[in-house]
């Protein structure tokens, strides 16, 4: 039991607890804020696993941008979740069956995998080395990602603009 494993277990408990709280909250603002804590935990886990650059990006992109966008949408749409039954029975059963199946398969894979008992050794990828690596070995994927982001920009713009006209007439503004 080194200090690293203590940190790992603390972080896993933090991540699991905050995620469990997030997915069971009725109020979506609370859910999003709990999930931000979960992503901070993941960022620290990335740092522990020797990926400092990815830890920074996790905070910038996930906790900083994606969750803020979620918060924005939750605030913008006036959604009343008070009447939502969190666990309706008709969805509980398939969810439980899928979950148990997944759990059994996952445990089988984890137990039977010969590599899975190897201990992780502490190592670190320097951000500079990481940047050099991805641009030397994965540059084509980066260009494809740029096209994907271009498509995302255009798609979001079209979806948001087309809704602009009818919304003014159909939905009364303000409450």
């Amino acid at each position, binding site marked *: 039991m080194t200090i690293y494993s203590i940190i790992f277990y603390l972080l896993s408990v933090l991540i699991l607890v905050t995620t469990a709280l*997030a997915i069971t909250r009725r109020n979506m603002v609370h859910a999003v804020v709990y999930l931000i804590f979960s992503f901070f935990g993941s960022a620290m886990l990335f740092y522990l*696993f020797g990926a400092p650059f990815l830890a920074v990006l996790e905070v910038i992109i996930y906790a900083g941008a994606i969750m803020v966008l979620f918060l924005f949408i939750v605030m913008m749409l006036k959604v009343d979740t008070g009447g939502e039954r969190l666990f309706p029975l008709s969805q509980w059963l398939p969810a439980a069956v899928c979950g148990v199946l*997944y759990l059994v398969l996952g445990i089988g894979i*984890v137990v039977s995998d010969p590599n899975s008992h190897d201990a992780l050794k502490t190592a670190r990828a320097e951000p500079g080395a990481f940047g050099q690596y991805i641009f030397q070995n994965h540059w084509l994927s980066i260009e494809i990602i740029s096209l994907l982001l271009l498509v*995302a920009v255009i798609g979001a713009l079209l979806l948001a603009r087309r809704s602009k006209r009818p919304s003014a007439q159909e939905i009364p503004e303000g409450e």
Partner: protein
Amino acid sequence: MIVPFNHVLVLAGLLFLMGIFCVVVRRSLIMILLGVEVMLNAASIILVGASLLWQNLDGQAVVLFVFAIAAAEVSVGLALIVWAYRRAGTVDPENYNILK
């Protein structure tokens, strides 16, 4: 020495299970998208762990692409949700039962 790799697998598996649970059970499009985010995060945790196990940077490179894909998915997905909300006035997937 940090921990055996299967502890990382168990952590990511539980996180993924929570994401699936959120997607299947919650009845709000926003929470469903949130569950997808949790699943993507679980996948990136396991990729970083595997990258550390085999001392190979490919896992971390894939995580970078996962971030980009998550951002694209969220932006288009949320735009779609807002668009659907403006047409139907609800984010409950049960109410999207009219073909037109």
